[in-house]
């Protein structure tokens, strides 16, 4: 036992390396990425006079463009970000993947800007899962998915090699949250209780006003 064990490559470091490597691979093969659907979508927007009364679902105005493999990984990522929790459903079970697909497939400037961020991020996730677990991210175990997401959410200051992965993850997290919290169960989960007609507007509950020391502020 007098020979020290060689230092183990810790999990965080391993994934950093993998992400960096796969990022390099992507940069070296831009055409490969384009073949996976990174080109700008050809669809048109909804125009300046869409029917606002009609219920709408992703894909009605412009085609969805994520591949099946990308959608499976996106669903798995969505559910790490918003898992089922008590009575609250998981993000993927309330259509958030369709929303993410709609978002990155839309022809508007904000969406065109997000599209490469999301598609390259999904490619990194797929490559990292392949290297580490020999399969798709969607087929990895819960613990493996969680570990990869933790890598993509580093403490500040983030290591520079993780910048793109971290930027992707933050954007993907925000899209997942928007997709989820705008659904009826998501609004309930968040605590939105409006959008109901009522005969009176009663203002804040008196106990809340008192708790924040604002009783004297009620002037009307």
């Amino acid at each position, binding site marked *: 036992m007098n020979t020290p064990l060689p230092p183990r490559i810790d999990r965080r470091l391993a994934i950093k390396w993998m992400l960096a490597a796969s990022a390099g691979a992507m940069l070296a093969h831009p055409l490969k990425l384009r073949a996976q659907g990174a080109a700008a979508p050809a669809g048109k927007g909804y125009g300046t006079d869409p029917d606002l009364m009609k219920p709408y679902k992703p894909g009605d105005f412009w085609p969805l463009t994520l591949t099946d493999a990308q959608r499976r990984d996106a669903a798995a990522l969505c559910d790490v970000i918003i898992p089922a929790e008590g009575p609250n459903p998981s993000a993927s079970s309330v259509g958030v993947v369709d929303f993410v697909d*709609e978002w990155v497939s839309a022809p508007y400037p904000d969406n065109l800007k997000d599209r490469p961020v999301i598609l390259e991020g999904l490619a990194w996730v797929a490559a990292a899962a392949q290297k580490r677990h020999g399969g798709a991210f969607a087929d990895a175990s819960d613990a493996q998915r969680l570990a990869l997401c933790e890598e993509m959410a580093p403490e500040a200051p983030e290591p520079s090699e993780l910048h793109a992965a971290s930027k992707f993850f933050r954007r993907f*997290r925000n899209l997942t949250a928007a*997709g989820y919290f*705008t659904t009826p169960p998501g609004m309930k*989960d968040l605590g939105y209780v*409006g959008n109901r007609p009522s005969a009176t507007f009663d203002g804040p509950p008196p106990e809340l006003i008192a708790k924040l020391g604002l009783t004297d*502020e009620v002037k*009307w």
Partner: protein
Amino acid sequence: MAFVTPSTTADRYDVIVVGSGAGGGQAVYTLTMDGARVLLIEAGRNYDPRSETPMFQTNGAAPLRGAGTPDKPFGYYDATIDGGWTVPNEPYTNASTEEGREFKWWRARMLGGRTNHWARHALRNGPYDFKPYSRDGLGFDWPISYADVAPYYDKVEMLVGVYGMNDGLENTPNSPEGCLLPPPKARIGELYAAKHGRTVGLPVIALHRAVLTRPLDHRVLPAKLHPGNPKAQRVIAEDMQNRAACFWATACGRGCAIRANYQSTTVHLPPAIATGNLDILVNGMVREVAIDDTGKATGVIYVDKATGQEHRARARVVVLAASACETVRLLLNSKSNRFPQGLGNSNGLVGKYIMDTVGANWGGQIPALENYPSYNEDGAGGAHSYVPWWLYQEQLAGKLGFARGYHIEFGSGKGMPGSAPFVPDAGGRTSFGVRMKEDARRYYGSHMGFSGRGEMIPNEDSFCELDPAVKDTWGIPVLRFHWKWSPHEIRQAAHMQKTFADWVSAMGGKNFKAPLPDGTKAIEPGGFIIHEVGGTMMGATPQRSVTNSWAQAWDVKNVFVADGGVFVSNADKNPTLTIMALAWRTADRILSELRQGNL
């Protein structure tokens, strides 16, 4: 029949009104209620808020969760149709692409125009606001005073329904008894902001907004609005009963199917149609005002956008309410042998002195508001409180470095979730899982947004003219804009951000960034606040103005302007209420001149 086509218009009307927004809607209302036969021409399509307003649709049922896009800049459910800073088939140009020199021109091509979309902030100009030159030596005085307009503010408030309170603050006029509706209670964030605003000198008071917090009193108001006119009283009394009070749900920007808030299409046009005196022609792009040999207007020439064909409509009087800049365009395109520089432009002042509102934004997060228990905060579909300009005396004493004031619009609360982030992005790890949801619930409602809305002083470098080359789809020359903020506006914008940051700090909150002393970084581009006025200024003499104090063109006595074009200054107060008050006053003048045979 209210809606007509080019082949079913009458041979001749008493008045043609071009544009159906706040000014056009008010002019049409006042004229038809008093018996004038009116043709209203609108460049956009017909629009019925009763059947087209997405009242309870949630963002989850909208494309992109309702996010704004170039097609719908204020979000999918915003009421605007065929509108925005770009409009299909209708370009405009800028003389300079330099930063700070561009003007962005917002339009809405629909019946009711931009009144379907606005914030419903309905503030009166104060006495100072009509005589700014006398007060500080800058800009111009109006040829009229607050006292001239006050009776019309009263009438407009009673007709459209405005909530608010009388606070008696400087240059922030009270309304006479019976004009205002009670304001809705302040939300928790508004109360919190009010308490801590006081420590930095900010008076938080009830906002004035054009939303019915209770039904209009159809027994009392009609006689005050139309004394001696029983038919008008009957029509408006009946219409008031068809407007419901706010039911405290859904944002006003979507429009209002129950007609609880003011849009030209919910307030002005239904009773005007009920008089039987109004014809409405939609999809009519007015190209020019037609003139006869004596120099009087005979009507207008317009393009039917459905066919591209040109048509004429005739009337004894033409009222232009196409919006400040569109009215300028129309006048400049109305060239004739008699008026080679365009109509009303013999002194070259048409298009000059365009003003927008100075805007700067800010955001902060207030830890004291984290995790408060949810209650329904939709309220009146917009803000309930605001801060009027509060430093009149310091400013007059020259202590501020800029000459005109601003008011503060602010908001917080647990509104309907949309596409914006739910957890602050700045600093730390990107949370996810149960932790992220806890964060989202914790921060929900704890963000506060601030917008300064300030007065711009008219200047020689901000104007519009016809572009010498570019034409729209119908071959009509388009506008070219010139824009420049003066140091007054730039410094004012910096002052806004400093004030907001101090206020957030006073609330124990976190500012998302530090305010910069350089106002050019804070100020929104020209046109962004969508309060552009001027271009056909009223004045006391034909040498110095385009219209007289009745908004009547000096050069052509049967042409009037009923939009924001006649503004001589652009007080911090949102212009819509003043546009309506002036349009009512102008329409009264037209009626009396018609009766006396002067037109």
